[in-house]
C-alpha cells in the first residue's frame, strides 16, 4: 500500500494520542473534530483571549491537560487537522464531512472513532425549565467562558463529575446551594476494591468531597429527586428531593446542573454499521470491539469514552492502542511491547471504571417512578404519560417502535439525551429487562445538517 489514508474523528485525549502514534509511524492522518480547538471536553481549551492558568482550569489534571495540549501543538505540522468539522455520515469506506456549508467525502483505509461522551441524564419533573443544565454543560460554561449557570446552583445526580464540577464552581467563587447525590454512601464502600486500581484518582475524589464540605456546601447522599420547581416565566426556583428516610426537602436555587455520569457517543459507530451489545454493568448498548479497539466492521477502530466510559486517562491509552492496531492491520511494524503495556493500562482503568459504576449507580428505577407529567424527550416534549399511554394503546415495547408512535427520541438530538431513560421507563412499564427494549437506531446526520450543504456561492 502506497500511503494508507487514516482518519481519526475527535481531538480529545484519545484522538490526540491516536494521531500522535500515527504521525510517529510516518503517516499523516486526517484529524476531524467538531470543536473549535483541540482538547475534547475534559481538556477543553479556553478561547484565545482568556488567560486562566492550567491549575485554575483543570485542577488536579492540570499536568495531563498541558501535556496533551503540548503534544497536539507539536503534532500540528504532521497531521491534516480539520476543526469545526462534523462527520455526518459514513458509507462505503468514506466519511462525509460538513464544515459550515462546505462538504467533502474522504476515503479511509482505517477509521479511528474517538467520539467522546455526553452526560447521561435521568429526567425529573421540571427539568425542561430554563436554568436546568447538564453537568457537562455547566462545566463547559465555566471552563470555556468563565461563567456560572446561575447565582445559586444545585448539583444533582451522581458520578464523579457531580463532585468535580461542584468543587470547580466553589473554587471559581460561585455559590453552590447543595450537592444532591442519588447514590447511597454505602455503595462507595462496596466499590472500594475496584476503586483502589487507581489510588491517586480515588484520593483526588476524596479531596474534592472534603473541599466541598469545608466550603460549607451541604451534601446529601441517597436522595431521590422529586421536582425541579419553577415556572415558564421565572425558570428554576428550587429543587425538591426526598432523603433516604423519606423526608421531602426543598432547596432554593436559580439553576440546576444534572447528570448521572456519562454515556458514549456511539452514533458514528452505528453509521459505520458496527455491531452493538448490551453492557449490563452500565445499562448501555456499546459497540463491540476487541481489546485493542477493533470494531466488528473491518477497518473501523473505537477508542476513548466514545466506545465505553473508562475516563480520560484510559482514553489516552486506548487511542494509542487503536492506532497501533490500525497500523498493524495495515501491515506496518508496531512495537508489541508497547501494545502489551497499553493493554495492561487499559485493563487497570477498566477496573477503576467498574468501581465508579458501582459507587455511583445509574438509578434505573427512578424512571419507573416518574410522574406522568414529567417530560422525557425535551426535543419533542414527550412526557412519561405520553409514552405510557402509547404503550397501552399500541403495545409498543421496542425502543424504535415507541419512538415511531410517541416521537420520543425523534428530535434533533435523536434520543442521545432521553433514549436511555425512555428505555428504562418502557422496561419498567412492560416489566421486561431493559435490554429487551433495545436501542434507538442512529441515523445520519449525526448532528443537524444544513440543507444548504454543498451550495456553490
Amino acid at each position, binding site marked *: 500500500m502506497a500511503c494508507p489514508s487514516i482518519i481519526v474523528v475527535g481531538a480529545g485525549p484519545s484522538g490526540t494520542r491516536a494521531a500522535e502514534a500515527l504521525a510517529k509511524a510516518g503517516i499523516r492522518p486526517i484529524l476531524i473534530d467538531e470543536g473549535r480547538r483541540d482538547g475534547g471536553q475534559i481538556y477543553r481549551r479556553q478561547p484565545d483571549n482568556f488567560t486562566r492558568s492550567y491549575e485554575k482550569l483543570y485542577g488536579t489534571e492540570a499536568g495531563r491537560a498541558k501535556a496533551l495540549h503540548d503534544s497536539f501543538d507539536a503534532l500540528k505540522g504532521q497531521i491534516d487537522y480539520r476543526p469545526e468539522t462534523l462527520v*455526518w*455520515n459514513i*458509507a*462505503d469506506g*468514506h466519511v*462525509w464531512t460538513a464544515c459550515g456549508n462546505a*462538504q467533502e*467525502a474522504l476515503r479511509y483505509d482505517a477509521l479511528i472513532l474517538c467520539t467522546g461522551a455526553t452526560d447521561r441524564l435521568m429526567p425529573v419533573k421540571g427539568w425542561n425549565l430554563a436554568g436546568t443544565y447538564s453537568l457537562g454543560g455547566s462545566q463547559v460554561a465555566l471552563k470555556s467562558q468563565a461563567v456560572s449557570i446561575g447565582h445559586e446552583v444545585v448539583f444533582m445526580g451522581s458520578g464523579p463529575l457531580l463532585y468535580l464540577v461542584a468543587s470547580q464552581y466553589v473554587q471559581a467563587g460561585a455559590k453552590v446551594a447543595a450537592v444532591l447525590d442519588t447514590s447511597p454512601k454505602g455503595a462507595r464502600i462496596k466499590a472500594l476494591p475496584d476503586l483502589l486500581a487507581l489510588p491517586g484518582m480515588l484520593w483526588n475524589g476524596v479531596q474534592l468531597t472534603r473541599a466541598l464540605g469545608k466550603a460549607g456546601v451541604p451534601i446529601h447522599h441517597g436522595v431521590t429527586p422529586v421536582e425541579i420547581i419553577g415556572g415558564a416565566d421565572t425558570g428554576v426556583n428550587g429543587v425538591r428531593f426526598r432523603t433516604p428516610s423519606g423526608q421531602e426537602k426543598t432547596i432554593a436555587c436559580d439553576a440546576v446542573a444534572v447528570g448521572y455520569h456519562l454515556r458514549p457517543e456511539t452514533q458514528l459507530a452505528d453509521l459505520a454499521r458496527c455491531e452493538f451489545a448490551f453492557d449490563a454493568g452500565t445499562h448501555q448498548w456499546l459497540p463491540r470491539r476487541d481489546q485493542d479497539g477493533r470494531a466488528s466492521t473491518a477497518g473501523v477502530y473505537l477508542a476513548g469514552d466514545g466506545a465505553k466510559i473508562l475516563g480520560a486517562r484510559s482514553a489516552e491509552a486506548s487511542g494509542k492502542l487503536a492506532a497501533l492496531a490500525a497500523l498493524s492491520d495495515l501491515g506496518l511494524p508496531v512495537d508489541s511491547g508497547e501494545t502489551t503495556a497499553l493493554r495492561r493500562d487499559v485493563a487497570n482503568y477498566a477496573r477503576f471504571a467498574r468501581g465508579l459504576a458501582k459507587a455511583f449507580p445509574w438509578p434505573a428505577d427512578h424512571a419507573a417512578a416518574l410522574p406522568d407529567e414529567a417530560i422525557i424527550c425535551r426535543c419533542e416534549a414527550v412526557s412519561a404519560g405520553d409514552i405510557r399511554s402509547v404503550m397501552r*394503546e*399500541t403495545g409498543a415495547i*421496542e425502543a424504535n*417502535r415507541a419512538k*415511531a*408512535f410517541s*416521537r420520543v427520541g*425523534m*428530535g*434533533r438530538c*435523536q434520543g442521545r439525551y432521553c433514549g436511555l431513560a425512555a428505555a428504562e421507563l418502557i422496561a419498567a412499564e412492560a416489566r421486561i429487562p431493559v435490554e429487551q427494549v433495545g436501542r434507538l437506531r442512529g*441515523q*445520519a*446526520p449525526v448532528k*443537524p*445538517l*444544513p*440543507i*444548504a*450543504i*454543498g*451550495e456553490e456561492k
Partner: protein
Amino acid sequence: MSAASDIIIVGGGLMGSSAALFLRGHGLSVTLLETDLIGRQASGTNFGNVRRQGRALHQLPLANRAIAIWRKSRELLGADVEYLQSGHIRVCYRDRPELVGAMEDYAEKARLEGLDLELLTGNALRSKFPFFGADVLAGSYSAMDGHANPRLAAPAFARAAQRMGANIHENTRIVDAQKVGEDFLVTAQDGRTFRAPILLITAGAWGNALSSQFGEPVPIVPRGPNMSVTEPVPYAIHPAVGVMTPLEEETVYFRQVARGNIVLGGSTRGPSYPDAYRAFVLPQNTMSQLKQIRRLAPALGKLNIIRVWSGIEGYMPDSQPVMGPSATTSGLYYAFGFSGAGFQIGPGVGETMAEIIARGATDIPMEPYQISRFAE
C-alpha cells in the same frame, strides 16, 4: 394441529392490515402474519403522500376509493393518523415547458375520473405558493389531496382489525406456503403452521419469494426511499409538493407536518436488502436531494435536516403493482409491488381485495395489475 381461519394474509404492511380490517367487515375470520412488526418497511417509511394526481389514469378509481377511506380514517380506526386534506401541487421547471401541455392533458382526462386539478402559472402560482423558486414554471394543484403519517397508518389499521377480531401474529417469518388439498398450509420459521382455504400475499418486496412458490415469479426489484426531515418550524406550507420531470434526480417532494417539521424525499432511490432486513440512505443521495430541494423551494435552504431514513420497497418494471387472483392457484391472491406509490391507495387496495375475496367481484379495473403479465 395448525391454526385455522378463513383467510391467511402474509405481510403486515398497509395493504395487509387494511385488507384484514375490511375482510373482518365481510365476516370472514382472518389471520395476519408479519415477519417483524406491523408497517415497518415500505408502509412505515414512505413520504406519506395521500396523492391521486400523477398516478396512471387507470389507478384513479382505486385512488378515489382510497381517499374516501382516508377522509373517514379517524372514525374508522379510532386513531389519528395525522391525515390532512391540505392539497397537493405538482410543478414543472422552466427548462421543460412541454410538460405544461402534459399537465393540461392529464388534468382533462383526470377530470373524467373525478379528480379536479387546477393549473397555475405566473403570479397566480406565486401568490398562492410564494415558496417556489424561480425555476418553477407551472403547477397542477389538487385541493382534495393531502398527506398522512406513514408511521402511524398501517399499525392503526392493524389495531382496528384486531379489535374487529383479526388474529395478528407479529415476529412471524414465513418460510413456506403451499396448497395441500383444499387448504393453504403456511409455515413459520419457528415451525408454527397456519391453515386456511384462502391466502392473500401482501408481502411487499418479499412478494416474489412467495409467488414463486406457486410457479409465478415476478421481476421485483427491492429499493428504498431517500427520506429526510427538518427541525420543526412554524406551520406555513399546507400542500404536499412534488416535481413532474422525466429525470429521477429532479424528482423531489416535500410536505410540512402540523408539528412543524418538513419531510423531504426523492431525487433517487437507495439500495435495500430484504434478506438482511436493512435499507440505507446513501450520503450522495442526500446531497443530490438537498440540491434539488434548494432549486424547488430556495427558502428551505435556511433549515437543517435532523434525520434521514429509508425502508424496503418492492418495484415492478412497469411501476404497477401485482394485484388480484393468482393465475395458477385457486384461492390465492396477491397485492404487492406497489413500486413506491402504494401509500395513498393502500386502504383502497385493502377494501378492494376484501371485496374480490368475499364477493368474487369488484368495480375497480384490475387488468393492469394481473400477475400473468409477467408469465413467459
